[in-house]
C-alpha cells in the first residue's frame, strides 16, 4: 500500500512539501511518544504515529528513513521543525484524532508489522 492511499483514507493534512506519495511504500508502522523507544524499535520505512511534535522527531525520522510521521490530536510542530523536515525530505502529516484511532485505521487498511526489519 502506498502513502497516498493512507493520506486519502485518513484525511491526513500534509505539513511538509508535497511529494509523489504514491511512490512511497511504507512497510510497517510504529506508535510511541518516547523518541528513545522509536529510535530503538521502529523499523526502517515505517509510518510513525505520535503526539510528539518536538524538532527532534525530524532527526529520528531521518535516522530511520521513516516514510512518514503522523502527528495526532492536532499537535502542531513549530516552523523550525517543518523547515528542517523539508530540508531533510521528511514527510509530516497532522490529524485531529487520537493515536489509538489512527493506528486502528492504518491497521485496517492493511499496514501490519509483525517482523520489524531492524530489530
Amino acid at each position, binding site marked *: 500500500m502506498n502513502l497516498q492511499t493512507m493520506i486519502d483514507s485518513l484525511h491526513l493534512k500534509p505539513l511538509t512539501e508535497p511529494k509523489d506519495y504514491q511512490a512511497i511504500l511504507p512497510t510497517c508502522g510504529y506508535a510511541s*511518544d*518516547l*523518541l*528513545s*523507544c*522509536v*529510535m530503538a524499535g521502529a523499523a526502517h520505512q515505517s509510518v510513525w504515529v505520535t503526539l*510528539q*511534535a*518536538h*524538532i*527532534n522527531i525530524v*532527526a*529520528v525520522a531521518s535516522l530511520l528513513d521513516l516514510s512518514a510521521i503522523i502527528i495526532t490530536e492536532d*499537535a502542531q510542530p*513549530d516552523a*523550525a521543525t517543518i523547515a528542517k523536515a523539508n530540508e531533510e525530505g521528511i514527510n509530516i502529516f497532522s490529524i485531529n484524532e487520537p493515536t489509538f484511532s489512527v493506528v486502528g485505521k492504518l491497521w485496517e487498511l492493511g499496514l501490519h508489522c509483525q517482523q520489524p526489519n531492524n530489530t
Partner: protein
Amino acid sequence: MIPPLIVEESIARGIGIIAITDHNATANIQAVQKAAEGKPLLVLPGMELQTSEEVHSLCIFEKLAQIEEFQKIISHALPHISNQPAHFGEQFVVDETGEFIRREEQLLIVSADLTLSQAWKYVIELGGLFIPAHVNRKAFGLLENLGFVPQDIPLHTLEISRHLPANEATIKFPQLSGHTLIKGGDAHRLEELGGFNEFWLASPSFNEIKAALKGLDGRKVIIRDSI
C-alpha cells in the same frame, strides 16, 4: 516538607545553597526564604517545569520578582483543571512556620502548553537558568522522551539523577560530554536532601553559580557522589 525543617536539615547536611523547585509551581518559595532569614543558607527561587514534551526542566532565578513573572506565563499555559486531592495529593501553600495558608486549586501535575524551546526562551529573557532535570531518568527525562539533547537551543547545563554516578554519566550517555553536569537531589522528602554539587564560588549567589556553571574565572562545580 515544612520550611523551617528544610532550612534546618539543609544546614545540618552542610548545604549552603538550595533552590525550591516545585512542579509547575512557586507559591511556597517565599516561605522557605523567610524561614532562612539570618541563617547561613541561600534559597534560590525555582520551578521544575513540565513542558509539552513531558520533559522536566529546572528554571532557577535570582529574585522572586523574576519567578513571579514566569509563574504568570506558566499558570496561563497550564490547562485550567482543578486538582483532585484524592488522586493527585494536596497542593498546600504554607507560611514560613509551615502553617497552612491555602490550597492551590489549579492542577499542577500536568504539562504546560509550552514547548521546551519556548520555555527556554522565556527563562533566558527573564534572566534565569534553564537546566533539563534528571535527563537520564526514564520518566520525564529529556534523553528518554526526546532521544537526544536537542540542538535547536543551547542547553549548556544538564542535571543527572541521584542514582547515576558522575564518572559513569558520559560513559553511559556519551552525548552528555561537552555539557556542564550537576546532580539533582530531586528531594521530595527531608531525608532525600542531596548536596551533591560542590560549587567553587567567591560568595553564595545566583551570579556566582551562573559563572561556575560556565567555568568562568576559576568558578566551577564538581559532583560529589557520596555525601
